[in-house]
């Protein structure tokens, strides 16, 4: 019980004292998970839209694959990415294992199906007649699609939040492909594992609080973007 409270004080202390190690781990976490989320959105939103709006053979199969991907265990992704990036693996020449880029690759694979799946659901749940109405009122295909996206904004922002929330809290894949190297690939989740390993439960708690604060801050900013008005 004491550790839970001590951790909060320690977190405050770490944040206000400008501890450079903690700052480095925080920025690395935001960098890796932020970039992975951004790439997932760039790839996943258009794919989700396309899946929702276009009919083609094999659509069901692709959709079920995306839905399956939403539940990919991070540790499995980490294992696969490791095998590819190892020196002895097919992409070993790129020298990417134990780098932030390797972590971004793994996290993107984890977030991408989530963003795609949620985007698909957001668009498909809009009244299908809306698109026909827009087209019949003289909108071009692009205009109709854009209006649909605007209409589905709530759901699309939820897609981004779900993807970000999944990767910033993920530990297994980051540990495997990043190696949890201090000053290079350590992120908040793997730092918690390390501090537990050292028996520093209070520091681990402190980092846990910092992780929660950061995640909450980003989610609040995204939520404000999602709604038109200030919600704080």
């Amino acid at each position, binding site marked *: 019980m004491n550790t839970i409270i001590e951790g909060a004080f320690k977190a405050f202390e770490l944040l206000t004292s400008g501890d450079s190690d903690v700052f480095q781990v925080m920025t690395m976490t935001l960098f890796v998970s932020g970039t992975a989320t951004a790439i997932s959105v760039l790839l996943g939103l258009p794919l989700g839209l396309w899946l929702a709006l276009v009919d083609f053979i094999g659509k069901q199969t692709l959709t079920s694959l995306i839905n399956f991907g939403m539940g990919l265990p991070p540790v499995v992704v980490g294992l696969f990415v490791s095998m590819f990036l190892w020196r002895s693996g097919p992409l070993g020449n790129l020298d990417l294992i*134990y*780098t932030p880029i390797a972590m971004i690759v793994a996290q993107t694979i984890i977030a991408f199906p989530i963003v795609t799946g949620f985007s698909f659901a957001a668009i498909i749940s809009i009244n299908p007649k809306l698109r026909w109405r827009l087209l019949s009122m003289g909108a071009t295909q692009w205009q109709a699609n854009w209006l649909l996206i605007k209409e589905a904004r709530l759901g699309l922002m939820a897609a981004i939040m779900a993807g970000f929330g999944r990767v910033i809290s993920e530990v297994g894949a980051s540990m495997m492909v990043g190696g949890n190297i201090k000053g290079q690939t350590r992120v908040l989740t793997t730092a918690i594992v390390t501090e537990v*390993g050292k028996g520093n439960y209070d520091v681990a708690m402190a980092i846990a609080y910092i992780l929660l604060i950061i995640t909450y801050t980003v989610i609040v900013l995204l939520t404000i973007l999602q709604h038109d008005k200030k919600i704080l």
Partner: protein
Amino acid sequence: MINHRALRHRYLVILVAILCISFGSIFNQEPTFGQSSGSKNVIVAMTTSIEDSGLLDDLVPAIEKKTGYRLKKVAVGTGQALALAEKGEVDALFVNSPKAERKVLEGGAVINRHLVMHNDFVIVGPDADKAKIRGKKNAVEAFSLIAKNQALFVSRGDDSGTNKLEKDLWKQANVTPSGTWYQQTGSGMAETLQVANQKLGYTLADRATYIFQQKNLSLPVLVQGDKKLLNLYHVMEVNSKKYPRVNSAGAKAFINFVLSPEGQTIIAAHGKKEFKQPLFYVDAGKTEKDYGF
């Protein structure tokens, strides 16, 4: 509506700013961003006890300053470290399972193996000591007693150096541990100690991790001092003749540093301030034979 839109844009700007700041600071701190085994990087796989005891945190800055190499230390169990070496995935090893190391050495995957330091293993357990092993001088006898009394034993079960020694001791005690009294965590020393602590079981631990964790534990040391419980740490270089991508020069620089007087002084001093006792005893120039192996 216009106000709201302006407000939303402001938040978007804040989000983008956060991402940019992280980008900026990452690139400032990462001059060799994106490459792991270039000539300036050395990947060292080591046991978790070295990471958890914070020893490398003391050594790394000195090594990097002296040699100009950038050290990437990957903390895994000795079993995994040796497996990575046998695939040529890492440049050097810093591990503690002599028997398993010799096998890999004979296979030609590693070369240039040197004894660096030692400490010892201890058997810890609940104060009530159901198996009555307290004060025994013989680790094998203690293990026999635990098995005979079906007292809970928590094993790491992760093929680490500690786990390998533990299995060896069971073999010597003629016990095939199984049943509900024998539980495997599959995780590192610290987690395993904590599981033993919560379940009031016995376990085998390296002394450095035990000292580090002591503030969170109620388990006393019950058996220590048996020669079988000696914990020897070796460094070695992964064979670049076998795996051309291995950074041989970097591995050599790492090994030479930990064996140098400067490296040995840092190791010998580690932990003295915090725990009033050293966590490791240095052994440069000695070999296993000096300890009768």
